[in-house]
C-alpha cells in the first residue's frame, strides 16, 4: 500500500463514532461477558430496566436472565452473594445503585471482599467488580451524591478505580473485570452523559493498566492532580489559567489504588508546584494522601506547599446549594494564585498577630 493510498483511506474514513460513558460501560460489560462465560452481572434494577442510569440496558435481554439479573433489594446480600459466587468460580460484576446505598454492604466489603485473599493465605481470591455511581453535580437529593472513594481507598485489599473519560470507562472496566482481585469501580455519575470515542480501545489488545496515571494536558508551571469527576474541572481551570500566563499540567490518576506515584511526582518535579483537586470533602480524603506523597517525594522541587481544593467538610448539601460545595474553576485558580509566584510568604495560616499589617 502506498503512502498516498493510505492518506486517502484516512481521509475517507468516517469520523469516530461517539458514545456516552454509560454506553461505553455497557459495551465493556457486554464484551467481557462475551469473552468469559463466568462473568455475571447483578444488582438492583439492572435486569429488565437496564439500571437507573441505563448502564446495563439490554444486557439481560441479550445475555439472558442467568447472566444479568435483579436480586432482592439488599446491598449486603448482593455483595455477600458475590463473594460466594466468586468462590464458586464466577466473576461477578455487581452494581450498588448509588454511592450512599452501598453502605449497608460495608461490612461485606471491608471484612470479606477486601480480606479474603489475605485471610486464606492466597488460596481464595475474589475477582469481583463493585460498580458504584458516585459523587454529585446532578442536582440529586441527599444520599445520591456522596463521594465515598476514601472509605474504599483506606481499606487494604481493595483496588479503587475512577474513570474520567469515556475511553477509560471502557478500558478500565475491562481491566477491572480481568483483575484477580476485587475492584471498586467508581463511576462519576455526572459524566454518564459525556461523550467520547472508544474505537481505539476496542481495537487494542491490551486495556489501560492499573496504577498508570495519564497526563491529560501538558504544562510547565504547575501540576493539577485530579481524578474522576474532578479531572474535567482541572482541565477547565488549566485553560482559564492560561489567560493569567500559567502553563498548567493536568494529571488524571485513573486508579486511586494502586496509585501512580511516579507520574505525579515526575510532573511535579518538572513544574515545581502542585494543587490536588477532589470533589470529596477534603478532611482525611484521598487528596491528603496525594499531597503527602508528593511532598515526601518531590520536596526539593517544590516552590510552594502542595495545596488541596476539595469539597467542604459537610454532609452533601441539598441541590440548591451544591454549587457552593463543589470545587470549581475559581477555587482552583485561587489555589494556583497562592503558590508563591512572587516569593512572598503565604500568610494564610499564620496566627493573625504575626501577619504583617493584619489587625
Amino acid at each position, binding site marked *: 500500500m502506498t503512502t498516498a493510498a493510505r492518506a486517502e483511506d484516512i481521509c475517507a474514513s468516517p469520523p469516530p463514532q461517539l458514545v456516552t460513558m454509560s454506553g461505553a460501560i455497557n459495551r465493556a460489560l457486554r464484551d467481557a461477558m462475551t469473552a468469559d462465560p463466568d462473568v455475571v452481572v447483578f444488582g438492583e*434494577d439492572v435486569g429488565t430496566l*437496564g439500571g437507573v442510569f441505563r448502564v446495563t440496558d439490554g444486557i439481560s435481554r441479550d445475555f439472558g436472565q442467568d447472566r444479568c439479573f435483579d436480586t432482592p433489594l439488599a446491598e449486603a446480600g448482593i455483595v455477600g452473594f458475590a463473594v460466594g459466587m466468586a468462590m464458586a468460580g464466577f466473576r461477578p460484576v455487581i452494581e450498588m445503585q448509588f454511592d450512599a446505598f452501598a453502605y449497608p454492604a460495608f461490612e461485606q466489603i471491608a471484612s470479606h471482599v477486601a480480606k479474603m485473599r489475605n485471610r486464606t493465605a492466597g488460596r481464595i481470591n475474589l475477582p469481583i467488580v463493585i460498580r458504584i455511581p458516585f459523587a454529585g453535580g446532578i442536582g440529586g437529593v441527599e444520599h445520591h451524591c456522596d463521594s465515598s472513594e476514601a472509605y474504599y481507598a483506606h481499606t487494604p485489599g481493595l483496588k479503587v478505580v475512577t474513570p474520567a473519560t469515556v475511553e477509560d470507562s471502557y478500558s478500565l472496566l475491562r481491566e477491572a473485570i480481568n483483575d484477580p482481585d476485587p475492584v471498586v469501580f467508581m463511576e462519576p455519575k455526572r459524566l454518564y452523559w459525556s461523550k467520547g470515542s472508544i474505537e481505539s480501545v476496542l481495537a487494542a489488545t491490551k486495556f489501560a493498566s492499573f496504577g498508570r496515571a495519564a497526563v491529560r494536558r501538558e504544562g510547565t508551571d504547575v501540576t493539577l492532580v485530579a481524578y474522576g469527576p474532578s479531572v474535567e474541572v482541572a482541565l477547565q481551570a488549566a485553560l482559564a489559567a492560561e489567560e493569567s500566563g500559567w502553563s498548567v499540567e493536568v494529571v488524571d490518576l485513573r486508579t486511586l489504588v494502586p496509585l501512580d506515584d511516579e507520574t505525579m511526582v515526575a510532573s511535579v518535579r518538572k513544574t515545581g508546584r502542585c494543587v490536588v483537586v477532589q470533589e470529596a470533602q477534603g478532611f482525611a480524603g484521598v487528596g491528603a494522601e496525594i499531597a503527602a506523597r508528593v511532598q515526601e517525594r518531590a520536596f526539593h522541587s517544590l516552590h510552594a506547599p502542595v495545596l488541596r481544593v476539595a469539597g467542604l467538610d459537610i454532609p452533601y448539601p441539598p441541590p440548591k446549594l451544591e454549587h457552593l460545595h463543589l470545587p470549581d474553576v475559581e477555587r482552583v485558580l485561587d489555589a494556583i494564585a497562592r503558590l508563591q509566584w512572587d516569593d512572598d510568604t503565604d500568610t494564610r495560616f499564620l496566627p493573625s498577630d504575626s501577619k504583617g499589617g493584619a489587625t
Partner: protein
Amino acid sequence: MPTPLEAASLTTDTSTALAQTASTDRSFARGLMPASMPVQFLDDLGHRVQVFNDDYPEPSSQQLVAAYRAMVIGRRFDIQATALAKQGRLAVYPPSRGQEACQIGSMLALSPDDWAFPTYRDSMALVTRGLDPVEILAVPHGTAHCGYDPRASRTAPQCTPLATQLVHAVGFASGEKRKGRPTVAMAFVGDGGTSEGDFHEALNFAAVFKAPVVFLVQNNKYAISVPISRQSVAPSLGYKGIGYGIASEQVDGNDAMAVLAVLNKAVAHARSGQGPVLVEAHTYRLDAHTNADDATRYRDSAEVEDWLRRDPIPRLEAWLRHKGLIDDAFVALVAHQGEAFAADVRERMAINLAVDPMSLFDNVFATPTPQLLEQRAMLEAELEAEEASR
C-alpha cells in the same frame, strides 16, 4: 368554606378525635398468623363483604368520612406534586397515587402524640398528618434535607436509605415506653425494603423489647422496576412477622375501611403493651417510581388498568353514598377543597425562596470545628468578592 390549610388541619383533627374510639385492645384472634387472604370490608365496587374481617370492628362513620376527604385532598396534592416535578419545579417526586387508603389510614389510626417514621413515598400521609405541604416538598425542591420540624410534627424525616428508619422507630418506641409515655410509632416500609437486613433486625428488636411499633408494609408490587415476585416467595409479606414472634396481618390496601379497621386495632394493640404488629397492605403504585422513571420498560398498561378498577377513592365513596353518609354536595365540597389545597401548593411553590449559603455550615455539629470555621470564612470571602464585582 374552609381555606386549604384549614381543610388540612380538619382532616388531622378528625383523625385524632377518632383514633381511640374506633379501636380495641383485644389481642388478635389468629394469634401471630395473618389471614390467609387480605382482610377486606369493601369489594372493588364498594359493596360490604366479609373477608377475614371478623376480628376487626368496623371503623366509625365519622372516621370513614374523614378518610374519604383526606384521600381526595391527598390525591390532589400528589397529582400537583407530580406536575411540579414534570415542570422542573421539583428535582424529583416519588408519587403515591393509588396508595391513598394506606397513606391516609396510617395517619388516621394514630393519635397526635404518636410518631410516624415515613419513607420518601409517604408525602400524602404527611399531608394528612397536617404538615405544611410546602415544608414536605422542601427535599424534592432542593432547599433542605427535611423541611419540617420533626419534633413539632412528631414525624421523623422522610427516609431514603431503605428500611433503616425502622430500627429507629423501634428504638424510639422502646424509649418512649421506658419514659412511661404511651406513644406508638408507625413505621413505614415498601415491599422492596422488606428484603433489607434492617427490616429483619427491626422486627426482631421490636419483638424482643415488646416495642409499641406498628410496621406498615405498603406492598405496591414494585421496587422501582423489580416485581414483588423477585423480592420474596413467601405467601405474604405479612408472614414475615411470625418467625419473630410478631402478630401479623395482611389487608387489602386499597380498601380504606379495611386498612383503618386493621390499623386501628394494631395501634391499640401496640399501645396496650402487647407488643409490635406487622401489617402488609396490598396496594399498587399507579405512577412510575418517580418522574425520572419510565414504567413502560417493565410493566404493561393492562396491569395498571386492572388496578385502576380497584381505586380506593370511588370504592369508599360508593359505600358512603350508599349509607347516606355523604352526598353530591359533600363530594363537590371535598373536590373543591382539594383544588384549593393544590392551588395553594402551586402558588407557594412558585416563589423562589433564597437559601442562605452560610447555612451550609450550620448543624454539622453543635459547635463547628476550626476547619469548618475556616471554610465558612472562605465562602464568605468568595461571596463578598462576587458581590463586589457585580
